C-alpha cells in the first residue's frame, strides 16, 4: 500500500516527541535542574506516545481497523500531558532564570528545557493533525 500523509506526520510527531524526551533527559542532567530529577509522568507519557505511534504505523500498514484508530488518538493526548507537566515543572525555574538568575550557564541549562517543551508541543500538534489522516492509501 502507498504511504499516506498520515504516515509521514505520525513519523514526524514521533520524531519530535523523541527530541522532546531527549532534551528533557538532558535538561534533567543540567546543573540548574538536576535536583528536580526525572519526572516519570513526562518521560512515561513521551515514551508511551512514541511506542504507540510506532505500533500504529506498523499495524496500519495492512489497513485500518476500528481498534487501531485508538492508536492515533492516544499519542497526542499523552504528549499534551507530557508537555504541560514538563512546562509546569519548569515554570519557576524559567521565571527565576529570566530574572534573578540570568547568566550564561543558567541560560544554557534553560535551553534544553525550552527545546523539550517546544518539541513536545510540536509533537502534540503534528500528532493531532496526523490523526485526521490515514497512514496508507486504501
Amino acid at each position, binding site marked *: 500500500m502507498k504511504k499516506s500523509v498520515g504516515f509521514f506526520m505520525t513519523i514526524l510527531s514521533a520524531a519530535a516527541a523523541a527530541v522532546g524526551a531527549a532534551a528533557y533527559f538532558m535538561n534533567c542532567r543540567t546543573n540548574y535542574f*538536576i535536583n528536580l530529577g526525572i519526572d516519570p509522568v513526562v518521560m512515561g507519557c513521551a515514551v508511551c506516545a512514541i511506542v504507540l505511534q510506532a505500533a500504529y504505523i506498523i499495524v496500519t500498514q495492512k489497513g485500518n481497523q476500528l481498534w487501531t484508530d485508538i492508536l*492515533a488518538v492516544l499519542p*497526542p493526548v499523552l504528549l499534551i*500531558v507530557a508537555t504541560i507537566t514538563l512546562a509546569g515543572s519548569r*515554570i*519557576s*525555574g524559567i521565571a*527565576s532564570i529570566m530574572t534573578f538568575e540570568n547568566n550564561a550557564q543558567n541560560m544554557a541549562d534553560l535551553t534544553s528545557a525550552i527545546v523539550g517543551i517546544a518539541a513536545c508541543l510540536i509533537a502534540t500538534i503534528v500528532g493531532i493533525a496526523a*490523526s485526521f489522516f490515514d497512514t496508507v492509501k*486504501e
Partner: protein
Amino acid sequence: MNASKKSGRGSQRLWRGLTTVTASVLALALCAQPLVSANRTDLDKFLGTQSSKIVTDDSDSQDLFAYKSDYTSTTELLDAIEDLGERMSEEGTVLLKNNGALPLSAGEKGKVSLLGFSSYYPLMGGIMGSSLTPNQGTDADTVDLVQALTARGFTLNPDLQPLYQSLESTFATEVQTWAGSVTYNTLTAPSVGGVFSSKEPSQSALTGADANWKNGLSDYNVMIVTIARAASENATYLPGEAGVDPSQNLNQADPLGLSDDERDLIQAAVEAKGADGKVIVLLNSASALEVQEIQDNDGVDAILQAGLPGGYGFYGVADILSGDANPSGHLSDTYAADISASPAAQNFGNFEWTNPDPTTTTNSAIVQAEGIYMGYKYYETRYADVVLGQGNAGAWDYDSEVTYPFGYGLSYTTFEQTLDSLKVDLGEKTVTAEVTVKNTGDVAGKDAIQLYVSLPYITGGLEKAAVQLLDYAKTDELAPGESKSYTLTADMQNMTSWDSEADNAAGTKGCFVLDAGDYLFTVGDDAHDAVNNVLAAQGASVGGDSANVKTWTLNSRDGDTFARTKNGTAVENQLADMDVNYWLPGTATYLSRSDWQGTWPKTYSGLTATAEMLDILDNDIYVISPDNGDPASVTFGAQNGLTLADLKGVTDLDDPRWSQLMDQITLEECMIRTGFGGTSTKAIPSIMSPEAIQNDGPNGIYSYPLGQYANTDASTGDPCAVEADDPNLTYKFGTMAAAPVVGQTFNKDLAREFGEVCGNYSLWANLTIYWGCGTNLHRIPYNARNHDYYSEDPVLTAGQGNEFVQAGLKYGCLIAPKHLAFNDTEINRSGVATFMTEQQARENELRGTQAIVENGALALMTAYNRVGVTQDNAHTGLIMNILHGEWGFKGLISEDFIQDANYTALKEAVMNGVTMSCNTGENTAAAVAEKYGYWTVDAVSKDAQLMAALKQAMTWQNYALANSNALDGLSSSSRLVSVRTWYDNLVTGLQIGFGVLTVACAAMYVMSAKKKD
C-alpha cells in the same frame, strides 16, 4: 473502493481527528488544574485577580484601620514622593571638584551642551533591582536629565540630542533571552562571566554622524559630560583588564576606569569650551569609579557624582548646577585610583572548588582575606602606618592610591567644625559629642558632621582601623556666618572590637571588648581629614587639626560592658566556622596592620572541600527524628476561638493569647506556609492570618502598581480607599534614588522621610512587606549590585537603614533589611562559600544590620550565599544565635529567591527561625512533600523539636503581621472567603465542554465506522 465507502472512511477520519483534538484539549485542561492551583498566588498577582478575600461584617469598620496616612489623596502622596526624590538628590549628589565653575550663572544656564550618550540615556536606577519604573500620566511623572534641565530653565544645544539619537544603534545593548533579545539604550552591567564593553561613541563616530557637530559647542560652551557605569543584580564587574572587552582596544585598564572614547570626549569638551566655557563631568554610577585622571585634568572644571538618581533626582542635580541648591552630599565609598590594587580585589571573582557538585550547589569559595580592612579602613589605616613608620607599610603613597576619600564632598560655601566637648558614658554605653558648625562662606548651605574614633592599637594585638565612623548628622541650612551647635549621641557598641580569644559571660570564648589605651575622637570633612587630625594629635606633621581631637583613656581592658547585647544575651563566638582556617588549617593569612606587606592577601583559588566540609555543603544537616522529644508536647489544631485580629497591635509575645492563638494552627499549615512562601505570606485559615504581599526595592515599593491591591470600596471605612478612576492607580513606585545616594546624603532625616513615604504608600497600595533596606556593605566597587546598598561603612549603613525601617513601622509597613548576611558578590551568589574572620564579620557586615534589628525591625531577608560552608539559612550561629539571640529579632524572615528545594535547606532554616521560603506550590501537604522529600506530615509529626520550631517560626511571622498594616480592616469576626476567578471558570468550562465534546466525537466516530461497514 466505491465512493460511499470512501466517503465513510473520510467521515471516520474526520471524527477520529476531532476526537483527538477534543481529548487533547480535555487533557490539557485537566493538567492545567494542578498547575493553576500550584501557581495561584502568582497568577493572581500577574492577572490582577483575587482567589480569596477576607470579609468583615463589623458596622464600625473605621476603627479597624489602625494606621493612618499623612495624606488625603494619592495626589498628595505622589507629590510627597516627587518632592522627596528631588531633595534626596540635592543632598545626595556629591560635588567632587569645583574650580569655581559651579554654580552656573543665569546666562550659563542658557548655553549648555550635553555630551556623552548617557546624558540622553541616563541610568536612573539599576538594570535589575532598584530599576526605574517610568511613570507617565500620573501626578508624579518621572523625568530624565534632559527633561529635568529643560524644566528648570536650562537651554540645551539643540544639535546634540538628534546626533546621539542617530547613533542609538551603536550604543544599544542586546541582552539575549530564550524568548528573544531585549534592547537597552543605556549602559548595562556585565552579566556574571561577562566583560565590560565601552559604548561611548568615538569622536570619529560622532563626526561620521554629523561632520558639524562641534560647531554649536562654541555657542553652547557649558559642557556637561556624563560618564556612566551601570548597576544590576545578578551582574558583576571584574578587576583590571580582565574585566574589559579585549576586542575593543580602548586603553581601558579597568571596567570602572575610563576608555579612550570617554577620554576623547572629555578632551573634546575641554578643547571646545574656549576661554569662557566650562566642562563639568557628571558621574552616573552607583559604584565608585576610577577618576583620578579627570581630577587631574585642569580643563575639567567640576565633577558631580549623581549616582543613580531615580525618577526625580535629576531635578536635584539641575538645582545644584544652577545654585538653587547647595551641594551637601558626601561620598559613602572611597574613590580609589586603582580599585584592583585594593586588598579586597585580590579575592574577588569566581574561585571554583576543585570538587564542585551542582546537586548541592557547591560551586565556589571566596576568602575575604582583607580582614577588617575594607574600604577606607584600609586606605586610611595604611596611610596612618606609613606616616607613623610602623607595620611594614612600605613605600605606599596615599595620594597615588586615593582620589577621593570616604566622606568627601564639597560645597558652594565653606564650613568650620569644632569638636567642643566629648563625653564617654560607659554606663549608658554612649559617646556624646558637642559639635559647633559655622558657615564661613557666603552662601547658605548644609554640612555633614562626621564623628570618627581612633581605637588604641597595639602591634600584634586586635586589628583596628586608624579611624572609623562612629556617628554622623546633617546640619540645618546655615546662613553665611551662622553658627550652630549639634549634639551627637553615638552608640559605643560601634567602637567595640571583636576578640575571638577573649573570655566571655557565657563562659566560652569570643566577646566585644574595649582595649586599654587612648581613644581619640575627632570630626573631619572626610575620613582622611579625620585621620590627619588623629595623627596630628599623635604628633605627626600631616596638616591635621589636633585641636579638634578629644581623648578618652581607658586604663584597663573592658571585656564586660559589651559582653551582653541590648537584650541581655551573652555574646560568644558564633562564626568561627567562617574562617577558612577552621576547615583547612593554615590556608589563609588575613591582612594585618602589624605587617602590611607580609600579610598582603594572596588570591585563594583552587580550594578543595574536605569530606567534613562536603558533609555540610550538602545542605542536609538536621536529622528529622522521633528521638527529638515528645510529640505530644506540641499542640496543634486547638479550638481556642481566637483570630490574629484579636492580637492586633499586641507587642508582648509573652501575652498568653499568643500561645493560645498559635495552638490553633495546624501542623500542615505550618509546613505548607514555611515550605511555600513564595511572594506573599498567604492566608492561614485556622488563625485568620491574611495574605500579605511582598515587594522588592530598595528604590521604592515597585513590584505592583499602586492600584493593583488598593481598596476601591470606601464603605469599608478605609481612609486610604481610592476611586476606581484615580489616574494614579497605574503609578509604580520604583522612582526613588538608589541606596548609595541615600547614603551620600549623610542625612538621617531624609532616610526617615523615605521610610515615611514608603509607609504612606504601603497604606494606599495595601502592600505591607517591602524588601527595601539593603544593608550589605560595598565590599568592593566591582559588585554591580552595590546600588542596592548604602555604603562601604556599617555605621552609615545602619544609621540610614534604622531611620528608614523605623519610619515605615509607624505606618505598619514592614521594611526589611536584606540580605543577612555577606551577600557581597553576585558571582555564584547561590552557593558561594564566604570565608572571613569573625572579627571582620561582626565589625563590618553585621554591624550594618545589628542596630536596625535591635531597634525593632519586624521583617528581614536572608542571603543566597553560604556562611563558611553552611547555607545561610542553615547557619545556626548567624540566624538563630546572633539574629534571634543576641539581637532579639522576632518577626518574619524570608529566604532570598532560592528556587532549588535542596539548596533552600528548609528543615534547617525552620530550626533557625526562618519563616518562609520562596518556593511555591499547591496549598496541600502532599505538594510541599513532593517539593521537599523529607517534609512529610508523617515524619515531621514525630519530631517534637522541629514541630516546636515550626510553631515558633509561625508565631514570629504572625507577630510581625499583627503589628503591621496587613491587619487593617480585619476584626475578630473577619472570615476568609474563597473566590472563583475567571481563570478557574475557564479551566472548569474547558474540562466540561471538551469532556462532552470528546464523548460526542467518539460516539460520532463509532457511528461513522458502523455506517461505513
